[in-house]
């Protein structure tokens, strides 16, 4: 028995992807070094202080290593078979935390047991990734099947909904990253195009007046018609639009004294759309129909977001969104953090100020220094060499994960692998992007670097379940 176990372990250790394990160990180690730097004043060097974050982090690193051992000793099939059970348990924990959790930074997302805090959302990421993989690996799964889409959608949206109720929206949004895995599994790229347009329109409604958006949409609509090789139609549409716009504007001018541009534009586009619709019906050109629906869909979306934003949201919520999108200055709030963060990173220069020499990070100019903004310490103390190296490490990790996922024989393992890569990617992109002012400030941690036990533990579990599955890559797990 013991021999068998030893042999199983031996096989596991041999089969594990040591490259990824080394990357993991290096990142955790370097991450800890930076947490140590944040919490240490070079003038009063006390190597170990039990109340300090770096000491607690050491304990969590230990816990993570033990967990790795447990995962490696667990049969891969267990993760497949029990994925729904995990999902159920973590969903239960997510709900439970709303009732018995403690509130930190306005989010009720933490269990407190003794001196330790634990955030169930970190486990929910693992469980959701597993459950999604389980649903999608079924033989007959298809993105064209409504019930499959509904099942998959509810798997993702249920935890997101609960997490939003916890007021921890940032962590909830992370699960949307799984769409990258869906893309790999065949989800139409148009979904992303549509999502991108929706986001763009949503942001545009807040910064520019409606008639400008309608104008941009109209011009791109006509250009799309043009590039779909309907040159004549595009010309006729332009002519009709211009004429009707002129007539509309003239009527407004005489009737009301001033021109209501969006209505005039809509009249013009309605006229040319009628022309296009007739053409599409007569010539049986469904492509034009799709374009028409898409255009009027975005117009409707523009007005509805505008309505929601202006009429349904409160002043405070509106400001939060504007600040988050960088459309409004808030030097003492979110804007302050980003500015201080950029200053800290920018002051690092090429080589950095050296280990423990950062002043911005040491003197608490950057808030959430050891958690969400740990990358600032890397930037300040290790300079451009350090930051680009860390970015490179993450890119290498992500590419390695794709590589590993692609070599899986089992769909479950591959999909889960993509899920892991997607979640890591989202965290890295948003966290680093936020510190250098390229992404909105969403308080999510940088994997393996940020201080915090549950996030380190969660990321470790996320990664090592995949590495465990990878040891059985030639098997078909179902």
């Amino acid at each position, binding site marked *: 028995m013991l021999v068998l176990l030893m042999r199983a372990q031996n096989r596991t250790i041999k089969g594990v992807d040591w490259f990824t394990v080394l990357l993991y160990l290096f990142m955790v180690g370097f991450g800890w070094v930076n947490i140590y730097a944040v919490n240490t004043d070079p*003038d009063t060097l006390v190597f170990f202080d039990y109340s300090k974050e770096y000491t607690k982090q050491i304990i969590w690193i230990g816990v993570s290593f033990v967990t790795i051992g447990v995962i490696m000793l667990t049969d891969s099939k267990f993760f497949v078979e029990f994925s729904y059970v995990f999902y159920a348990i973590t969903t239960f924990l997510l709900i439970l935390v709303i009732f018995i959790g403690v509130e930190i930074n306005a989010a009720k997302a933490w269990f407190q047991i003794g001196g330790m805090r634990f955030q169930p959302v970190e486990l929910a990421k693992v469980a959701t990734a597993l459950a999604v993989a389980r649903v999608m690996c079924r033989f007959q799964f298809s993105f064209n099947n409504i019930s499959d889409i509904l099942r998959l959608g509810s798997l993702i949206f249920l935890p997101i909904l609960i997490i939003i109720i916890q007021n921890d929206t940032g962590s909830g949004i992370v699960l949307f990253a799984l769409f*990258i895995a869906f*893309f*790999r*599994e*065949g989800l139409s790229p148009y979904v992303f195009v549509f999502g991108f347009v929706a986001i763009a329109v949503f942001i545009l409604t807040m910064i520019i007046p409606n008639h400008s958006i309608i104008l941009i949409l109209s011009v791109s609509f006509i250009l799309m018609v043009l590039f779909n090789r309907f040159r004549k139609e595009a010309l006729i549409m332009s002519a009709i639009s211009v004429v009707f716009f002129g007539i509309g504007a003239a009527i407004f001018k005489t009737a009301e004294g001033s021109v209501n541009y969006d209505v005039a534009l809509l009249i013009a586009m309605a006229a040319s759309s009628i022309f296009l619709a007739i053409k599409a019906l007569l010539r049986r050109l469904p492509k034009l129909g799709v374009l028409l629906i898409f255009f009027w869909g975005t117009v409707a979306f523009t007005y509805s977001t505008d309505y929601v934003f202006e009429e349904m949201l409160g002043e405070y919520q509106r400001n939060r969104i504007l600040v988050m999108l960088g459309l409004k200055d808030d030097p*003492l709030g979110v804007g302050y953090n980003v500015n*201080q963060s*950029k*200053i*800290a*990173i*920018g*002051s*690092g*220069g*090429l080589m950095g100020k050296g280990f423990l020499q950062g*002043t*911005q990070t*040491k*003197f*608490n*100019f950057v808030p959430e220094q050891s958690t969400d903004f740990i990358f600032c310490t890397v*930037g300040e103390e290790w*300079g*451009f060499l350090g*930051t*680009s190296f860390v*970015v*490179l490490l*993450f*890119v290498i990790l*992500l*590419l390695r994960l*794709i590589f590993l*996922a*692609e070599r899986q024989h089992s769909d479950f393992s591959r999909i889960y692998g*993509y899920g892991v*890569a997607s979640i890591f*990617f989202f965290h890295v*992109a948003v966290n*680093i*992007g936020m510190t*250098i002012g*390229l992404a909105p400030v969403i308080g999510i941690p940088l994997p393996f670097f940020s201080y915090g036990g549950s996030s380190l533990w969660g990321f470790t579990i996320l990664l090592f379940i995949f590495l465990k599955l990878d040891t059985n890559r030639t098997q078909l797990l179902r």
Partner: protein
Amino acid sequence: MGNSNRAIIIGLFFGMIGLIFIIRLFVLQIVDPSYKFSAESNTQRKITEFPTRGLIYDRNGNLLVSNQPVYDVMIVPREVVPFDTVDFCNALNITRSELERLFEEVRFNLQRRRISSFRPSVFYKQLPAEQYAILQEKLYKFKGFFVQRRTVRKYEYPNAAHVLGYVAEVGETLLQSDPYYSLGDYTGISGIERTYETFLRGQKGARYVMVDVHGREMGSLRGGRMDTAAVAGSDVALTLDIELQAYGEKIMQNKIGSIVAIEPSTGEILALVSSPSYDPSLLVGRQRSRNFPILSSDTLSPLLNRAIMSGYPPGSTFKVLMALVGLQENVLTSTTRYPCHQGYTARGIHVRCRPHASPISLVPSIAVSCNTFYCHVFRNVLDNPVHGSPQEGLEQFRNYLLNFGLGTRLGSDFFNENRGFVPTRGYYDRIYNGRWGSLTVLSLGIGQGEILTTPIQMANMTAAIANRGHYFTPHVIKEIENDTIPSRFRVPHYTGIDSVHFEPVIDGMEESVWSDVGATARIARIPGISISGKTGTAQNPHGENHSIFVAFAPKDDPKIAIAVYVENAGYGSTYAAPIASLMVEKYLNRAIHPSRGWIETRMMNASFINESTE
């Protein structure tokens, strides 16, 4: 499934984001230098080191003004945690409602973004040292509060408030016009604190320290190599004799008026009393905000420096000047005699005079203060045919007055001197439509009417007479440490009257004190001191006349020239003259002769302040 090329797309996407980040980091960390500067201004703070203000001494080296520490209680709003307010109130010695008001102020300033919740700002200004001792022990209990030391003025004598002026926070205008000052700095607002501000203030120093986000000092920057030490302000010595000044203030208690005493040979002001006065300590530290409104709303205007600000008709003291002008203009000689039968009458105008021997010549005319004599002299000056017209004569007459420093700012070290008023020809042309003659403006000749002079101008005029023809601009600055006093105080001003003409006039002034017959100021006699003076009574349409006396002594080697004004005290001989003589005696003999003790007592006890106005 044919989706493996999507793996490449995803991989490229990940790589692209990584590349964008690296480019962005390259720009942030290497290309754009602005973040490095921001980081420096973030963590490096210039802490101003305030120099101690220069000390002020009197002419004999007595320390008048020094400095004392006070403690500003600072607040970093973000760090404040709930605390025991009763304890805090006791520590600051304030009431609960005051504390609430202070917090309301902080909240208000925070909302207006005037102060930062991360950085320290003043919560409670100028806690006295005794109270600080109490607060210090409890300070650890009040998170977010700390104490910053400053120095404020400490006055060793309760005197000379008007000369010294006071120090307070800089106002908006000075803040904008002078880059030296920043908000909350102190500056001299009046008196010599204002005039010699640039010497007294010293040079601010700077200390560069590293601070954390809350502005807490985390050690000096680069070992303090960039720091500059504050340079203490220069000490100054004043020309005041603080004993004389204190004596003058004491003698003027319960009276409204002023005393200006000048050393004629230098123009140094020995005493400058404006009564009522106040203890300069009242305007120091926290008391200032409480006392200033009380002082400024007092109906007796204790903040008004009457010695340089109030214009009065000079009354009979003007006659000495009139005599000098007449002599210089050759319309009068020391032997000229005019009859006087208790007045001067011409074309329906009658100027009364007191009974005295007639006819009267120059010297006794001063001694008995004959009005008739000076009506003649005045008319002769104006109607002198060499001027062509009385109007031209008036202009000529006016020039003499200006040469004596009347009708103009003397240029002393007080910025707010009143210029007084010497009417011009144009002034009378406007009033009388150009039809007027020497008789129309006759009252000028006896120092009444439109002419207004300030006490300092009259003291200066007396000094010019004592000097037999010149004066030095009166000033209170004697020495400035490591510097020289303004050169304008060392240049003599000539009056344009030949020195020979002074002798009969000075004789008259001597007679007015010492003459056995009709001397108007015999009460001013000081045993052993040849004091010469002239009484005056300024007509006051609002009430009792003002008592005036100008004098200098000793006659042949003048050490002190003085002008005394006592409002509503009647004749110059009754109050101003004895007060002046006491001042002169005090200055020259340092003590009052026992035989004159009764005068001193009477003067000290005299009160001309209505109970109702007090």
